[in-house]
């Protein structure tokens, strides 16, 4: 055990946060926006204008929020113009309070060496149903499988885990869950682990 004392104790709550929130917003935004990442975000905004929203620009990470009708077009632009060539990860996040399920694509590039550190986060949201019937309700998004081949299994996983049906995906079968799973999609927030 390290016995180095309280000097190194991190104060996450009381003292640090109020001070930093007061001080940070203006100077941090001015100083911290990394140039290259800012350039990427600007190119996307230049092309799509108000249809995309840049959620954050951090070192090596840029996040773009897109409406569900534009996601495919934006993804094609990212592939063809900005050289992102594969999806690292596709995650679903359930937001019951917003009545939406978010699908987050983390895109990377193998071919363009200037992008090798970058992960572009492309997020879109699908409508969330209170009583889901996976595949037969309004929780639908356009599939990016034609744009990024690598999302095939990821999107299948999100369909079974969140009930988001991907229109245009050639193979929307279950992947990890048992074939006879009849409960709610398990990663939705309203599916509770038994005993918890």
């Amino acid at each position: 055990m390290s016995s180095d004392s309280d000097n190194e104790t991190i104060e996450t709550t009381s003292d640090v946060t109020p001070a930093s929130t007061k001080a940070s917003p203006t100077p941090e935004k001015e100083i911290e926006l990394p140039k290259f990442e800012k350039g990427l975000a600007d190119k996307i905004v230049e092309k799509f204008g108000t249809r995309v929203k840049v959620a954050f620009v951090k070192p090596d990470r840029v996040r773009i929020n897109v409406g569900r009708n534009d996601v495919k077009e934006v993804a094609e632009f990212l592939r063809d113009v900005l050289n992102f060539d594969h999806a690292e990860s596709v995650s679903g996040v359930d937001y019951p309070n917003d009545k939406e399920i978010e699908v987050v694509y983390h895109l990377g590039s193998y071919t363009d060496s200037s992008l090798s550190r970058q992960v572009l986060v492309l997020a879109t949201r699908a409508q969330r149903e209170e009583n889901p019937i996976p595949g037969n309700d309004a929780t639908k998004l356009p599939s990016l499988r034609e744009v990024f081949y690598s999302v095939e299994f990821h999107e299948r996983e999100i369909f079974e885990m969140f009930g988001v049906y991907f229109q245009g995906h050639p193979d929307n079968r279950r992947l990890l869950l048992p074939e006879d799973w009849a409960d709610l999609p398990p990663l939705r927030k309203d599916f509770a682990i038994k005993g918890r």
Partner: protein
Amino acid sequence: MNNELPPGLALQKVDERIMTLNVGPQHPGSGHMRIIVQIDGDFIVACDPDPGYVHRGEEKMAEYRNYITNIPHLERPVIHDSCNILYPYVLGVEELLGIEVPERAKYIRVIASELNRCVYTMYWLAIYGIFLGHSTMFMWPAGDRELLIDLLEKMTGARVTHAHFVPGGVRNDLPPNFEDVCLRQVNYFEKRIKEYAAIFYDNPILIARTANTGVLSRQDAIRLGTTGSVLRASGVDYDLRKKEPYDVYDELDFQTNVLKEGDSYARSKIPWLDMMESCRIIRHALQKMPKSGSVRVKLKPNPKGKGLDSVYKRVESGRGSLGCYIVSDGKPEPYRVKLSVGSFRNLIALPYLLKGEKLGNMPAVYWSLNYWPVEADR
């Protein structure tokens, strides 16, 4: 018609020539998963991987536990590479909570991560050997792997499930005299794995079975988003330890191994070459590591993130890029944890590689993907 079994549940004749065959989930040649193959005589015409038999809901469980208590269970998908699967999670939590890690802890992490990569690779190599009918190649790595397991046991207290990385550093400092023992074992280990060339990698029988089987072109490797040894065997130089160095990898001296062939032989050779680089990294890290100092920042109980925030961190594991996406909503428990693992990403290549291969080549192709079913299912 109602008596018909669901597709894929039985050995059934589709027509005169094509037969559907289930390999797994209990078959030792598939691991804990099922590969549904359709064969025409001896040749595979279609393949449909069916993972999920060891799905444990790690991501769901992570939403119920706080950032610290998540550590021991998140390493379960690959217990023999447990340092590397925790690495992106720990890096992510550090970014969310704004923790600065002491220098010595960074070096210890790199050493543990590289030792663990070797432990994983040796396990995989043993399985790869036995499925090619080479039982010496099962015994040797299984035995030599113990050297490094002993080191990790000294370091962390547990043989395989280390739970050693914590946000803010590592759980314990190194035991006394660890550097000398580590150096000695790693040097011996390196000498041993070099001997594998003569018995395994230069073996004409192995080459005959694996060269030119399951060839993945560079273009397809990129298009399918494969990662790790599969990607680097197809001629793409992409290793996160070089491309996006985390902790102290940018200060260490090593190179990435790239082969151009893209066949099973190249895919099986890359992890072996990587182990020698791991030995170099460990030696260099032992030399550069600060000899004393703190190894862990003390955290408050139940640390929380600051409001709605998200972070995506990735490291190079034994099976390729391992990403962790954490969403925090300001509570002590993460709102969502997603592990994007190399096994899951490489699985997509399997149907393409098996199409047109002989059924007998299936183990050579399947295991060369460096696939670990438990990790893919999470």
